[in-house]
């Protein structure tokens, strides 16, 4: 894209923004990417509270199975049924993966900041952008509705393996309408994300301001751009899979259901379908999905860290190259979720090789972050603490991946709590830390007020210790063979591990309580936080060059910033130890 074409684009009337008028246009059906970004973040906030409460119920039951606590189940108020546990588990996973980890760091912060970081007035297709939020909102409502239908929500896990998920009510409680609603919800979610990816890609390629070459884009923009390319392909595969699943459930087709299945002594009429087909389609989406969950975190951490080390991030081009490599490789590894699935054992080796290779760029980026702290003038704030904490938990979570990537070891560890510990560290903790870091860092720009730093530091300290106490023990009990997705531990060999479950439950409740500090800080600062200076962190990227916090409706007050350097200009010699990207004004 050469400059003359971009200037032509910038002049096109269809992109000129008028300020929004009227309550509905300003606050509900807004075309402004900043409002849409906040709507996504608010949706993710509701989702994470829901998902967290579900996890408390789960852990309460696992740690104290005989406890008499209200709301533990619809049938019996004082004790949780096995199916209810599995339903809570399914909804916990689905809500967290889709409506928190894909929504907050990517759709939320990305929508708010990508256009600003590239110097644009808004996303390329504001109407599609608005649609993407409301379709996602509809998806969430559909999913939550499954709690209120007879037989309740699905219980087949967020992975919804067929035939359990495809047969229908015959498969047992939790496989009635709730599973169909699950599939509809996820299909809608795919549509919403595709509309979003469309915007991210077109905006990054076409709406960069003068001087903002691809090489000068902030790391967070690169991460959002890479993530949206991954997401475009991944969600385009999940959507067909969900459509076929819905057809199997309601239209009598047999895409995923083989012949001769017997439930309650009744032979099913379906025939010829392949349960493995669902697994392939799902994991072809599912593995890139977890990189969709973590790559924005990579970008956010890499973006924020230099502002608090006051020196350039080490190896910026290497970092960007590694993010792209990880994105590309993420499409070659999906079979590592299926080593024991019954597919040809030779393919296990084929999938294991790229899975292990992907550890190389992941190691490089981790070492680049650690090396960036060497010799720094480190400023400790809530935002920077969550960046540092991200590195630590990502190391912990990534290392356990080493084990699972090898089919011979996975023969033992598959289906155990070792896997649960692994993915919670990288997704439930590291990706969440990315969201926290982004919140503490960008809150002043989004709301024009500062969050309370003392509360933020307490939030970090309690959470950091808490998550290690919850999730590190999962690796130990996994090594002992503790199977996952069990609503109770009645096997002989699991009895010695029950005290560990109690410990994890207490840690989970304690860590959950610590999040109340964050929520309180978030809400209070919205209304009572001290006014924020325009660039409180002395950072370089374009969002800190907007004329106000929050930015005006067209971000830069009618002027297009002109970019004269990259985002990494920290630690420069002279009176100021940093140079802003918009060194010269348009």
């Amino acid at each position: 894209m050469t400059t003359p074409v971009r200037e032509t684009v910038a002049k096109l009337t269809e992109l000129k923004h008028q300020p929004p008028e009227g309550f509905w246009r300003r606050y509900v059906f807004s075309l402004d990417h900043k409002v849409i970004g906040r709507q996504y973040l608010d949706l993710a906030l509701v989702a994470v509270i829901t998902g967290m409460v579900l996890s408390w119920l789960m852990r309460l039951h696992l740690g104290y199975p005989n406890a008499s606590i209200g709301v533990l189940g619809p049938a019996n108020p004082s004790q949780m049924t096995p199916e209810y546990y599995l339903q809570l588990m399914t909804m916990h996973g689905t809500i967290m993966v889709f409506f928190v980890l894909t929504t907050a760091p990517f759709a939320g912060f990305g929508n708010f900041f990508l256009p600003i970081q590239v110097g644009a007035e808004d996303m390329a297709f504001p109407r599609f952008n608005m649609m993407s939020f409301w379709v996602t909102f509809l998806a969430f409502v559909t999913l939550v509705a499954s709690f209120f239908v007879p037989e309740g929500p699905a219980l087949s896990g967020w992975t919804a393996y067929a035939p359990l998920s495809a047969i229908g009510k015959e498969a047992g409680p939790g496989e009635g309408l709730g599973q169909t609603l699950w599939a509809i919800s996820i299909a809608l979610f795919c549509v919403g994300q595709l509309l979003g990816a469309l915007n991210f890609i077109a905006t990054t390629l076409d709406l960069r301001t003068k001087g903002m070459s691809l090489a000068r884009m902030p790391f967070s923009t690169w991460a959002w751009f890479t993530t949206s390319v991954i997401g475009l392909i991944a969600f385009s595969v999940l959507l067909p899979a969900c459509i076929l699943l819905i057809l199997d459930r309601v239209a009598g087709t047999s895409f995923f259901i083989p012949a001769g299945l017997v439930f309650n002594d009744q032979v099913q009429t379906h025939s010829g379908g392949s349960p493995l087909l669902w697994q392939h389609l799902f994991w072809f989406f599912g593995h890139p999905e977890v990189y969709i969950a973590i790559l924005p975190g990579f970008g956010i951490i890499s973006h924020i860290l230099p502002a608090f080390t006051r020196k350039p991030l080490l190896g910026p081009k290497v970092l960007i190259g590694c993010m792209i490599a990880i994105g590309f490789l993420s499409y070659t590894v999906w079979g590592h979720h299926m080593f024991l699935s019954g597919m040809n054992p030779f393919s296990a080796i084929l999938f294991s090789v790229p899975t292990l290779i992907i550890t190389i760029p992941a190691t490089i980026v981790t070492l680049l972050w650690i090396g960036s702290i060497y010799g720094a003038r480190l400023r400790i704030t809530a935002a920077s603490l969550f960046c540092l904490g991200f590195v630590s938990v990502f190391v912990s979570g990534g290392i356990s991946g080493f084990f699972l990537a090898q089919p011979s070891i996975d023969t033992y560890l598959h289906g155990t709590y070792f896997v649960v510990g692994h993915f919670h560290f990288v997704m439930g903790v590291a990706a969440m830390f990315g969201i926290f870091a982004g919140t503490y860092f960008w809150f002043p720009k989004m709301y024009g007020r500062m969050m309370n730093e003392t509360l933020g530091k307490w939030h970090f300290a309690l959470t950091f210790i808490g998550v290690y106490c919850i999730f590190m023990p999962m690796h130990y009990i996994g090594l002992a063979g503790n199977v996952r997705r069990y609503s109770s531990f009645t096997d002989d060999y699991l009895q010695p591990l029950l005290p560990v479950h109690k410990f994890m439950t207490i840690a989970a409740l304690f860590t959950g309580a610590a999040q109340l500090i964050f929520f309180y800080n978030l809400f209070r600062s919205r209304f009572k936080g001290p006014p924020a200076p325009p660039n409180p962190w002395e950072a370089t990227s374009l969002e800190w060059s907007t004329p106000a916090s929050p930015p005006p409706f067209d971000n830069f007050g009618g002027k297009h910033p002109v970019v004269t350097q990259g985002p990494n200009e920290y630690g420069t010699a002279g009176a100021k130890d940093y140079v802003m990207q918009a060194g010269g004004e348009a």
Partner: protein
Amino acid sequence: MGKFFAVTVGILTIVSAGIFMFHVWWLPPDISVLGAGIDHQLNETMVASGILFVASQLALAVFVWRSSGSTGPIKIFPGGATPMVVIAVVLVGIEVAVLTLVGSKVWAGLFMVQAPANALQVDVQAEQFAFYFRYAGPDGKFGAMDPSKVSDANNNFFGLDPANDTTARDDIVAATLAIPVNRPILLTMHSRDVGHAFYVPQLRIQQDFVPGLVIPLHFTATQTGKYEIVCTQLCGLGHYNMRAYVEVMSDSDFAQWLKTQANQ
């Protein structure tokens, strides 16, 4: 606060690594012929990743400790990004290559090799929420299965038709997997309804049941005893309770067991 972070990381690292190192919780003793390969692979990986884990966490802690609140001139890591790339590509790359080469052999031995000719074949069916095991009986042949003849009420789990199918008449169906010690066992695994899985930690074996497929799994147990078989593929509300036992016994005890089962 930076120093608090550094100390916390240090403590968490050392405690976590220590618990791994001292096998506070660990795998149960291995009672299979091929399990040693898996255990060796696991230990190798534990050592290599343990070193990487401790080194990177401590480096993080040390750098944060030293640079927290520092006001001196900034320093760039010696060599810049190059040492990071070299460490990752060379060290991690070599480790990955070694683990793949050795691990592939272990994997192939488990899953890509035919069962020995003298293996005892046991037909295994998984269903919501139990495992059933079928032995061929003296005629050495398994009777045909017909889903329309399945009746849990009549204990006809496999849908056999002994009235019309001679090979089915002497099939032995049991809820326990009894096997002779030190004899190769070949399981032919199929599911009657949804996906299930078969896991015996002590035997170091695990394999999914896929409806519509018959999946072979073979192993040899080296110690007598009673071990739990648990389901590891989410199959519905009874998933947590879906178990059976594998009883490894001497040849003579096994022959006796078969006779007792046949007479029932």
